[in-house]
């Protein structure tokens, strides 16, 4: 009997560890979330002077120790404590939801995107603050937002009229996708870079019919999937964005009346062999997502895929220290002696043109516990302003790369380069102390790229950015968006390829409104 009891005890002990792992302790979960001490209060108990402690979660490819040199540097600068935690970007939403659900909320929440930040405010996980507070504690960030314009301020505000995130501009996306023409083809067909759709159409037909690559085989096309964006744009209906209709109300571009004209043109291009029949599968055929295989491997002569950062030109290569990257690299592998040129957004019959939609980048939002603590949050905004290079762009070099002379040096071309044995993340640099975008810092971090960009887009005709009217997903988009989009995607392909007549477009529009588009449109105009 004694043995049996011992046996039973042994069993219970053994199983306790294992079984509950699968089974969990549901009962305790309700309270443990509330018990957890919000990190904002930790600092308050220590000493007379408040020394704040900030928990920051970033997407990092490594681990940052509490005593990493740059963490200690910033701690000393601001007399605060930091804990920097990394999170795996590919599963960031799942992992962060888990943390929020368990009450484990960091002070600085990053990389979840505008819509999630907005939701977090609704759920009272993230907090808001007033414009005055921002102007008082981070006047330089406020000045940056003033520079971006009232749209930026509006984008940063929640429905309660207070700020909840900080918009910034990513210089890579400032001017939309680059418009690229292959020089040797233009030369072969005796044309200049066209500026209007009418002129471009003449060139398109020559690209398809006049054998611009001179191999005697009719194997060239003018454009493919991404090039089509210029056709849509020229008709004033950039694909799948909300635009202002004639009556001033928002309408989804893909069901706007002008779309029918764009589709008419594209269907004609397809029938005449101008549009690459492989447009359906896209111009990228695997590998890095921004590579344009269709263009760089000589199938098409005009493209509108990816931003200028992926299309450094052969001219750029002439500046010392510049390297061929992404598309230029692939293009030169195939055509070592050739070049491509930057074009202009094609102007349509009514003068419309398009290169992209203004997109702000939203890096971070902040726990309600922190924004409710004016002292702590005010201090944070000061830190943000400094590390983000809003006061002096040079500060951002310290944030991104560490200390000059210890972690990085300028090379002979004036470009800052990390020392070989330095891992920026491990020392507490990299993204650790970046909380928002500021396109001006590119001038110090990547001076060659910034110079290239500034020179290219000093010609203001090279871009035509459209406003972004709908920043957060509409309330019903989860219910209807996918189905509505599928209708458009499939319908447009069948119209362009001639499988369905052009009048099928009217049917698509009718159906689109019927299956949820009407609700979305009403919400967009609300």
């Amino acid at each position, binding site marked *: 009997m004694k043995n049996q009891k011992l046996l*039973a005890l042994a069993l219970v002990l053994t199983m306790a*560890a294992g079984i509950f792992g699968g089974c969990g302790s549901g009962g305790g979960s309700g309270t443990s979330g509330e018990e957890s001490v919000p990190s904002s209060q930790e600092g308050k108990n220590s000493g007379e002077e408040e020394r704040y402690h900030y928990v920051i979660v970033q997407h990092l490819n490594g681990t940052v120790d509490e005593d990493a040199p740059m963490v200690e540097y910033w701690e000393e600068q601001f007399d605060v404590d930091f804990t920097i935690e990394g999170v795996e970007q590919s599963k960031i939403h799942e*992992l962060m939801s888990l943390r929020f*659900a368990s009450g484990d909320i960091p002070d600085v929440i990053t990389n979840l*995107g505008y819509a999630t930040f907005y939701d977090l405010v609704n759920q009272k996980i993230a907090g808001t603050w007033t414009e005055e507070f921002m102007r008082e504690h981070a006047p330089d960030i406020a000045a940056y937002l003033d520079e971006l314009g009232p749209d930026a301020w509006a984008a940063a505000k929640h429905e309660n009229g207070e700020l909840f995130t900080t918009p910034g501009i990513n210089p890579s996306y400032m001017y939309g996708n680059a418009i690229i023409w292959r020089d040797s083809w233009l030369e072969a067909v005796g044309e200049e870079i066209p500026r209007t759709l009418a002129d471009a159409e003449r060139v398109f037909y020559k690209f398809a019919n006049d054998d611009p690559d001179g191999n005697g085989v009719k194997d060239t096309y003018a454009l493919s999937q991404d090039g089509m964006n210029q056709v849509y744009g020229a008709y004033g209906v950039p694909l799948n964005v909300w635009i202002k209709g004639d009556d001033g109300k928002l309408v989804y571009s893909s069901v706007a009346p002008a779309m029918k004209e764009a589709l008419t043109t594209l269907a004609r291009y397809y029938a005449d062999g101008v549009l690459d029949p492989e447009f359906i599968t896209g111009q990228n055929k695997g590998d890095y997502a921004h590579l344009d295989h269709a263009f760089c491997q000589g199938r098409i002569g005009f493209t509108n895929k990816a931003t200028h950062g992926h299309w450094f030109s052969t001219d750029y290569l002439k500046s010392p220290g510049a390297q061929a990257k992404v598309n230029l690299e692939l293009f030169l592998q195939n055509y070592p002696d050739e070049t491509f040129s930057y074009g202009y957004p094609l102007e349509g019959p009514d003068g419309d043109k398009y290169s992209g939609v203004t997109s702000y980048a939203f*890096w971070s939002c902040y726990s309600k516990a922190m924004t409710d603590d004016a002292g702590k949050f005010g201090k944070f905004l000061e830190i943000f302003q400094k590390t983000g290079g809003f006061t002096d762009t040079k500060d951002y070099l310290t944030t991104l790369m560490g200390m000059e002379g210890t972690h990085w040096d300028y090379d002979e071309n004036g470009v800052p380069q990390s020392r070989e044995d330095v891992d920026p993340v491990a020392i507490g640099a990299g993204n650790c102390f970046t909380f928002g975008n500021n396109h001006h810092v590119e001038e110090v971090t990547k001076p060659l790229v910034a110079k290239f960009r500034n020179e290219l887009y000093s010609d203001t005709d090279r871009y035509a950015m459209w406003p972004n009217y709908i920043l957060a997903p509409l309330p019903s988009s989860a219910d209807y968006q996918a189905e509505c989009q599928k209708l458009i995607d499939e319908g447009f392909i069948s119209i362009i390829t001639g499988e369905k007549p052009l009048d099928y477009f009217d049917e698509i529009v009718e159906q689109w409104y019927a299956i949820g588009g009407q609700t979305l449109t009403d919400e967009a105009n609300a």
Partner: protein
Amino acid sequence: MVLRQKKDRRTHIRKSPGSRAFDICNYLMLTLFCLTILLPFWYLLVLSFDKFGNVTAQDFFLWPREFTLDNYKAVVENPYIWQGYGNTILRTVAGTFLSLICTAMAAYALSKDSFPNRKFWSFFVVFTMFFSGGLIPTYLWIRDLGLLDNRLVLILPGLVGAYNLVLIRNFFKQMPPELEESARIDGAGDFRAFVSIVLPVSKPILATVALWLAVGHWNAWFDCLVYIRDTRKYVLQIILQRIVIEGTIQNISTTEQMTQEFNARPEMVKAACIYFTTLPILCAYPFLQKYFVKGIYVGSLKG
């Protein structure tokens, strides 16, 4: 006998054209089927030995266009891979060993009819096969135990699996009681009988379960992703996933590119990486596969 052989041969020869055609079709289809499984593996292997360059979904080649070991060199030089290997091996060895001991001990107790409330405890165990507490409660519980960011979290929560426990228990139950009685006559207690008599004769089932556990530990990554924050404690599979999806569209966030260069890894290095990290388990599989099937027979569920 001779006659029968003759007859056999005759039937073989006299196969109708129809059935022969059927056989040919059969072999053809099965060969094709095998190829659909083998070709991706082969292509990946070829890619991993191919010289750096761009590759598109349309490219396909059965032999490296230009042979190189550079891809593997790039992988071997990546410190994260070695760190991941270390962590994975540690959890596999320690996890399998501890799991096996605990599961076998629990199974031994549950296999005894004299064990008090045996039915209840058996039900208690089997219950967890059908219901789990869900991710969030488990996370809270792990956090409250202070196991976050602790390597033990990769081993302890799954220490005793119900299915394995039932398998081993059934195996113990089939053992003739006389075996143990002989030991008890010699004065052995429960523990001694378990270690000296029961365990040695249970090697087949223990080997099978150990194998399952080891494979499970080798492939596991989700628990590590959720509970471990220090990247130095990441297991190999997370490192692998990170390398493979780098530069694909889902992974490109608009904010991020301000600070990062456009530096996607070539497909060849990804391929080499996949081979390098899956090779150990890939090699072991064909030799161990028979145990997977056998294990289910030896411990098959009975009451």
